[in-house]
């Protein structure tokens, strides 16, 4: 598998087929003399900002921590052992509701969208 081609920036869906984000980053362990091993995929704005450069990365990390507290100071990790299938989408065996990934969307639903009639 070509990590950049087949993994990075693909759609991630959880156990219930909920679209939870894109593979914003890949965490791999470099091993001397052997091919690198993928440990996890990363999701979230901090990872995306880091791809633009070190400084945007630091700013986003600060922003995420300020707005979201400690739970959001680091990018979201999904262990490689949770990845079930790499096809059109990346299927992961987690339930997004039990992670911090959708905290901001839940906030948006509870405080803004959900308060508008007809939501």
């Amino acid at each position: 598998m070509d990590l950049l081609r087949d993994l990075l920036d693909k759609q991630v869906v959880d156990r219930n087929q909920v679209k939870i984000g894109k593979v914003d980053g890949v965490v791999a362990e470099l091993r001397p003399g052997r091919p690198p091993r993928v440990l996890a995929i990363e999701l979230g704005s901090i990872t995306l900002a880091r791809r633009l450069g070190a400084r945007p990365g630091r700013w986003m990390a600060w922003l995420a921590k300020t707005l979201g507290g400690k739970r959001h100071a680091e990018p979201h990790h999904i262990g490689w052992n949770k990845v079930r299938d790499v096809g059109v989408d990346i299927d992961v065996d987690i339930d997004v509701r039990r992670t911090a990934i959708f905290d901001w969307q839940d906030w948006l639903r509870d405080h803004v969208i959900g308060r508008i009639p007809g939501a």
Partner: protein
Amino acid sequence: MKKLIEISLGIVTSVGGFLEVGSMATAAQAGATFGFQLIWAILLGTICIIFLVEMAGRFAAVSHHTIIDAIRERFGFNAFLWPLLATLLVNFLVMSAEIGGVAIAAEFATGIGFQWWALPVAFLTWLLLWKGTFGFIEKGVAILGLVTLCFVVAAVMLKPDWEAVAAGAIPSLPGHDAANYWFMAVSILGASISPYLFTFYSSGAIEDKWDKTYLGANRAIAGLGMTFGGTISVGVLIVAALVLGAHGINQVEDYHQLPLMLIPVFGFWGFVLFVASLAIACFGAALEIGLQQAYLVAQGFGWTWGEDLKPRQDPAFCGVYTLSLLLAAIPITLGLDPLKLTIFSMALTAASLPLTVVPFLFLLNDERYVGEHRNGVISNAAVIFIIALGFVLAVVSIPLQIFGGS
């Protein structure tokens, strides 16, 4: 039979998407100032958009990816950021222009100044997106959009010199106001080849759950639908050339000159038809662009999206269109001239084309996405031509805006 209904519906829908404030305003301006001479620009734009829409639909049906989705996936986040930001900005301006178009129509109908209508129009658009389903919006826009056929009827009833019309289909050099002529040509091309059309179309294909069995339908919808839309634009141009020119209006500087267009043919009802056409075409486009803004962001970042879901299920998606519509209403509320905004945003659309069209060349030739359905020689030649055209437009649109825009 079911396919046939779907195809006819798709054709009508694409007309709704094609004809909006940009194509109406640019065609009317071109007709008034240059007679039939710029018909070639509408034809060229229509042929280009047929190819792009066909490819966007084929890509979605075969790969189950929307174009936006795939640009992020294939080129990575950093490269994706440029088309994303450019398209968001262009869509914002175009949506504002569409809201302005509906607001102007409301002003014609009621006499109350257009600024006052911007927020109500944005609210009504939002309400339909909030409560409606994709099918409802698609079909509603489509069926109401048929009223714009009145321009074709009017064009035929005015008995134009068809030889002169045919001569306009061949590009020719202008006899006067060269900068303005080329600026009009660029604006017409920008209005015809709108990125929101093909990105929206590919999202629609996913919303309607297309697969490979739709490839034939896709071809028919793209070809006939866009031709149909282009025909109506040509109708607007012919009517503008014959009516506005005859009344001594050689420069359309103000929307208030436009309702005159249909009156010699239909009398008072011409005024009503014009107002209805303007309102419906712009309203339909505002709906589609509102959705498109939400598709763009949600697909780019991998959030849950879908117009058929309840807002509670995709709060971020709904948040994007809510915010976009609100922001787009502001310039019009502040009294920005909708016609100037329209022409400006059409030129900017043309300038942004390379960012969204270059990816087509890669995506439609990538076997991992489209397998055996990848582009043939003709489609690739078309994409390369559109890319070249896009670069030319990008380079000339800003200088022309300065020298030929007013």
